[in-house]
């Protein structure tokens, strides 16, 4: 039982982080290497919010909102200038953003890791079918389900989602129909970055809040996006849960092979379904 809970919690955390990248990479075509740095920034902002307010729940809302605002500014000032450019320029620009965010964090909070605790009531364990599982991990699973449902409903069942999908499929036609494509792109980048920050807040009670946390997750994020299919929220969820379960099973039985198993899955998907496991084939004519 604990293996399932742990695998799901790892997967949900990865989903929270990767769904933002799915939006940005899948819908804007931008390779955003700064996604991990925004995840880290979210965790630090959450730490500071807790220091000021004493509440993890306030931090869970405030930190992503702050990053949404910052990311909107980043998109307006820098990112939108590279949409039409080669991916190489996007990589260079977003790598530069990593350095800026890293230095900002270091100068404000220093080099020592910070403490972000689980909120009261979620800091202990729960007995489930003979195993002690962390209450916070159960919360993560539930929270991840709620977030995925919200994304699904908004993107697939709402007018806002229709506009976003329209801009993704054919931005010129969307513009002809009167949609402000530039504004939609700003919102996609901002919300995607906000999701990275949300992932950072959610990860804070489990992992140390330190300046290296972003590097540890960015590769996993890109793998989730590729496995699930670019721009595909359902695919992100499935990809994240797959990787989460592989890590959990690996930890239990063959911890030294966790990396190998994960990359084997990634290679397998690239060979068998390079468009992603859940991408739909689009009609060409």
């Amino acid at each position, binding site marked *: 039982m604990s293996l399932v809970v742990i695998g799901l919690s790892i997967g949900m955390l990865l989903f929270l982080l990767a769904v933002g990248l799915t939006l940005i990479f899948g819908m804007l075509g931008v390779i955003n290497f700064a996604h991990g740095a925004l995840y880290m920034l979210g965790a630090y902002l959450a730490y500071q919010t807790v220091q000021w307010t004493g509440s993890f729940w306030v931090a869970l809302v405030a930190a992503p909102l702050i990053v949404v605002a910052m990311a909107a500014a980043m998109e307006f000032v820098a990112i939108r200038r590279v949409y039409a450019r080669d991916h190489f320029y996007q990589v260079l620009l977003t790598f530069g953003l990593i350095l800026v965010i890293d230095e900002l964090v270091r100068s404000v909070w220093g080099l*020592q*890791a910070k*403490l972000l605790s689980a909120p009261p009531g979620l800091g202990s364990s729960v007995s489930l079918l003979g195993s002690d599982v*962390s209450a916070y991990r159960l919360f993560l699973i539930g929270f991840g389900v709620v977030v995925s449902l919200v994304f699904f409903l908004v993107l697939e069942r709402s007018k806002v989602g229709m506009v976003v999908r329209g801009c993704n499929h054919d931005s010129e036609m969307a513009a002809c129909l009167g949609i402000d494509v530039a504004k939609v792109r700003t919102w996609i980048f901002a919300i995607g970055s906000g999701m990275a920050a949300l992932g950072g807040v959610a990860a804070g009670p*489990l992992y140390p809040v330190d300046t*290296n946390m972003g590097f540890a997750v960015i590769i996993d994020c890109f793998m989730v996006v590729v496995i699930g299919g670019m721009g595909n929220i359902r695919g992100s969820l499935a990809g994240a849960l797959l990787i989460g379960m592989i890590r959990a099973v690996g930890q239990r039985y063959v911890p030294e092979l966790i990396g190998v198993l994960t990359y084997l899955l990634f290679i397998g998907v690239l060979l068998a379904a390079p468009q992603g496991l859940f991408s739909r084939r689009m009609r060409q004519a």
Partner: protein
Amino acid sequence: MQKIRLAGAALAVLAFAHPAGAQDAYRIAGVISLTGPLGFSGISFKKASDLAIEMHNGGKVGGAWEDDESKPQVTAQKGAKLAAGNPDLMLGSATTPSTLALMKITEQRKIPHLITLGGGDPITGAAKTAYAWRTTIRLDMENRTGAAYVRQMKFKKIYGVSFDYQVTRQRWDAFKQLVLSTSETKIAGESFSPVDNMDFSLIIENAIRSGADGFWIDLPGTVGTAFLKQAAQVNLKGKMKLFGPVVVDDEAAAAIGDGALGVSTGTRWHWSLDNPESKKFVEAFKKKYNELPDQYAGEAYDGLAWWLAHVEKIGTFDKEKLLQGFATSTWEKSIKGKKVMRACDHQALQVGYWGEIVAGAAGGPKYVLKITATFPPEDIFPPCQ
């Protein structure tokens, strides 16, 4: 005072009262990790080294530092750049691979190399050089202090976790052998975590299922912090005693929270030690930097202070004479009481400390490592090979 540069290869000079000879200034250079995962130790190292120069020279002088970004290949590049200026002393680095890379350069250039942080056994073992001398601990010493703790606690069974990495697997094997040969304690199980893994929940569950009453955690730095945070969420310390070679200190405990209370660990030094030299250093550090020194600062300061006192005593800057004299040097003013250099392997013999995280006093750090045992050098250093 010289500004500290993170790039560039120029050397700063240290105004040093030298009784004779053409050279007036003693030149020190250092390659340390000021950024990257080990940046926190490098910053401490640099602050303490600057303080050692200041306290043992009477003037305000800076050193020339290069940042190796916690990467051995960068250590080699920056070390070569600094070595080209022929400094009188080289310091660094933080990790064993970086230190070994720097040792090759200092051996080639015949530059005395003082190792005040890197603890890997090969540094004074298989990879020993004529120019590299270590004033800090050896990592296998931590195995011995840990095994002494196991005997003291009379554990029935212990579980162990370490990185899935050759050096750390070997260290665990050596620790297991020590425990099995010197106590009645059995080994309940072991896990090896990939170096980039930060989720330990199933390893923790494996340990609980093993029925162990002690858990040896050889996961240093932020990885150890992640482990203890996750262990706290299932109240692991309520089921077994958590301990390890360098699993936690005051700063890590602050990032873990109450889950760090009661965790036992080895440490190189602690600011609370009650001896005059240690107190003098702590006061000076607090006055200069408005913070308490950590164990890396303590070791960096002590090693360089020893060397500078040795230079004063020998009365020459001649590198070969200094090295010859250092081989039989004793440091009576160590912040750890006393250190004695061992000529056979260039390793300073010194005491080992063991402690436990407790709640700090009002007005001080929230969590403090309380020293609970001190081990004499003869108990924790193996004889020279």
